[in-house]
């Protein structure tokens, strides 16, 4: 690595004496969040952790301090599958109704319920059944988003959790299309499991997941009745990029390749001619139906594609994943997310080379990014998108004390315009500062800082009937702050904090400060 961890620097401690910072010491003593004080680290270490994780907290810093920087990054790039969560967090996840059965069973059950509700002839009863169906659909997507946020907050695999968000956004689907609310949780898990593996696996898994198939209408795409929606987006957004050198003709031809890839959650299989039976394929709710497939030869990106059914689709997706334009497009998107709005061309070049040399291995591509001087130079200068803002604020405010209800966080992220599974169009949310730092968005951020800072935001009121709220005051003025963070604040922020008239206001100001807007 370029930078070495250095040792405790005395200037940090001197800041403790700065006017006003002692204001809240009395309040801090009421908390149970201050545990063993983290070892001191360099400001660059804190900045690195703010980038590699969803936002620094004491647990992340402790984990980091146990090993070398390289080992820490290696561990993040190659996470263990069953990293333990705090028991109270795991219990919340286990209790989610979504976990009752696997996705195909949910789809089947909810489809039966929808049909049953539609078949009711008494108006009032029908309306009630339809409403109950809608509520339960929404609850399933909400369960998935709660799990997602709890993992972002507390999983030791912080990099993987960021990538889970990143890949969902890259292969975006919208929960309110058709019955996708049943599917988004499974879709996200599928992406999480592959988030640091080969890009071709991600691309194929997304292409063949019922959520994507239904979202971009490929189940409507059949020989003679072409729907080119998915074919276009897979080239433009998921792989080659809009300037990737393909034409409208390529879109049409790839759409022909993709004919027959659809969904089937029923217990029936389509009637097929004997010659087609060998080509039929069914995996979970995903179906390849050769009767709907265009068995003519296609010409994609200048190459003749003989008709082979499913294998033909796999071959073309793999080809897209290995394309140099894809290497560049994926490297650029990763760098925009993890480095800067305008990543330096040299960095993209380096990442693209790593991508191509490793057959699209994301961990290898990210390693090249971490190793680059441009990455270290960029730390602290990337504007937080709304999800980063909200998650990092809660991580810091409660520093390891697990929240009991992620619902308020979902609301804040929605208000800031980046709701989970809620971007309608397949391009996903933008990732540059200009998209999130307008006057209206900043005002909303400050209001959310106020809600978090005053400690009665509902994060400790379990999402069950008759729950008792046990509000906990945010522990922002904690050991982590005094030993590590205070030294990273500018003069104006320290002046404002010193002028705070209450502990609440101090919290609000810290979470509203310009320093806290960047990672």
């Amino acid at each position, binding site marked *: 690595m370029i930078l070495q961890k250095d040792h405790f620097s005395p200037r940090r401690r001197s800041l403790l004496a700065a006017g006003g910072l002692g204001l809240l010491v009395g309040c801090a003593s009421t908390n149970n969040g201050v545990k063993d004080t983290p070892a001191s680290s360099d400001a660059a270490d804190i900045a690195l952790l703010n980038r590699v994780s969803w936002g620094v907290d004491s647990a992340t810093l402790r984990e980091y301090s146990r090993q070398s920087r390289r080992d820490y990054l290696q561990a993040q790039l190659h996470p263990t599958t069953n990293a333990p969560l705090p028991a109270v967090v795991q219990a919340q996840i286990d209790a989610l109704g979504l976990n009752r059965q696997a996705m195909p069973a949910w789809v089947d059950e909810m489809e039966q319920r929808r049909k049953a509700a539609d078949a009711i002839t008494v108006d009032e009863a029908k309306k009630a059944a339809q409403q109950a169906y809608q509520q339960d659909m929404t609850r399933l997507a909400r369960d998935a988003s709660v799990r997602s946020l709890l993992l972002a907050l507390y999983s030791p695999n912080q990099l993987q959790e960021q990538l889970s968000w990143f890949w969902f956004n890259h292969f975006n689907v919208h929960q309110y299309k058709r019955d996708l609310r049943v599917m988004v949780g499974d879709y996200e898990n599928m992406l999480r499991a592959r988030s640091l593996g080969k890009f071709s696996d991600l691309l194929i898994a997304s292409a063949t997941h019922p959520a994507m198939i239904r979202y971009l*209408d490929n189940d409507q795409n059949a020989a*003679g*009745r072409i729907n080119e929606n998915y074919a276009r987006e897979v080239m433009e957004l998921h792989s080659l990029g809009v300037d990737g050198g393909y034409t409208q003709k390529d879109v049409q031809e790839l759409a022909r390749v993709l004919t027959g890839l659809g969904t089937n959650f029923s217990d029936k299989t389509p009637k097929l001619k004997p010659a087609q039976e060998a080509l039929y394929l069914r995996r979970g709710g995903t179906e390849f139906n050769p009767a709907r497939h265009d068995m003519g030869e296609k010409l994609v990106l200048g190459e003749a594609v003989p008709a082979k059914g499913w294998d033909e689709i796999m071959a073309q997706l793999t080809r897209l994943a290995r394309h140099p334009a894809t290497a560049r497009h994926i490297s650029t998107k990763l760098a925009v997310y993890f480095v800067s709005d305008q990543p330096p061309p040299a960095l993209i070049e380096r990442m693209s080379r790593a991508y191509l040399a490793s057959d699209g291995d994301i961990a290898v591509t990210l390693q090249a990014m971490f190793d680059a001087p441009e990455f270290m130079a960029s730390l602290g200068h990337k504007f937080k998108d709304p999800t980063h803002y909200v998650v990092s604020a809660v991580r810091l405010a409660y520093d390891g004390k697990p929240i009991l209800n992620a619902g308020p966080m979902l609301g804040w992220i929605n208000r800031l315009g980046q709701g989970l599974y809620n971007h309608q*169009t397949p391009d996903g949310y933008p990732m540059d500062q200009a*998209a*999130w730092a*307008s006057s*209206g968005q900043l005002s909303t951020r400050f209001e959310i800082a106020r809600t978090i800072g005053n400690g009665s935001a509902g994060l400790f009121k379990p999402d069950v009937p008759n729950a008792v709220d046990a509000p906990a005051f945010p522990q922002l003025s904690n050991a982590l702050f005094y030993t590590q963070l205070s030294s990273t604040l500018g003069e104006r922020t320290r002046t404002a904090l010193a002028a705070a008239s209450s502990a609440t206001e101090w919290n609000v100001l810290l979470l509203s*400060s*310009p320093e806290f807007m960047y990672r």
Partner: protein
Amino acid sequence: MQRRQLLQGIAALPLAAGSVRLMAAAPGTPRVLLVFLRGAYDAASLLVPTSSSFYYEQRPNIAIAKPGSAADAALPLNADWGLHPALAESMLPLFQRQQLAFVPFAGTDDTSRSHFETQDSIELGQPLVGTRNYQSGFMNRLAQVLGARDAIAFTDQLPLTFRGASQVPNLSLNNLTKPSFDARQADLIAGMYTGSALDGQVREGFLVRDEAMRNIKGEGSPNSMAGEMIAASRNAITAKGFEGEARRIARLMRERYHLGFVDVGGWDTHVGQGAGQGYLAGRLGELGKGLAAYADEMGPAWNDSTVIVVSEFGRTFKENGNRGTDHGHGSVYWVLGGAVRGGQILGEQVSVDAAHLFQNRDYPVLNEYRAMLGGLFGRLYGLSSTQLGQVFAEAAPRDIGLA
């Protein structure tokens, strides 16, 4: 009282150039609202080519019936064109009052047929050839040329078209809540940003939100935002679809701003779009109601108002296998306002038949948006060709008689 203090507090701080907006729009000042229909609405269902047998051949399931042939048939506008029946009560009266014109075969020469690519390219309004500057949208450049200090986006995020050198605030009127901070707290927060890159936005955010709450004739009247807010629970303004939002936008445009932007989504009808009734009819109906409400709420200021409705591209002329339509090319733009020369179908046109389709599938673009909007802005604001060149570089403004 608190609001006034907040304003004084903020105003007393050193402000970044161009970020103060305390002057109300003067009477007689043109007010322009750009409405972007994201997702590419099916223009051939809005402005129906009723004299084209080709249209009815190509759309056996989703065509809007010829005028008089069914209960939900197209409403005749002239010998060749009809209006979608969902707009009978909202837009047809405006057309008849000659305050609404349609421009068919409108759009961009961008042929990527990608929503995102084309939305971006239209919002930026730059020449298609050359490097794209994502920090320079055409509405922002228009604001610069006008020396306008009263432009605003009624969206949660600042749209690309308003990004640029002139700092433009944004405020969604879908869900507006009471200001959370008193003047001292606002000053403390703003103070942390002094001299930073976000300085202007932060100050402006406090100011605009305060103005929006305050902006009303007779604060507290039932029609005011404050009144509406008080009536609604939990401080959130009630929103009845686009109509409620459009009324609130109109109030702000009437009182405070004269260049605005709002977007409306949900138009990407690949599957089951319906015909005289159905999904698309519902969306068009809601949009029409909103635009009519906007005109109504403007009151006398409607005479100085122009609303331009655009979308990234049209859809395939032929219906697809799912009774929907796919990504196409030429669209139909709407221009409405008290001073618009409406009641007409304007711009260059061709007959709607197989021979005139673009790439054998879509409407052609005969009225390129940069030329057409340049011509319109030239008329509305009396801009010189140099000024228009700053808004739409390398475009030749074309006045097609909209104003």
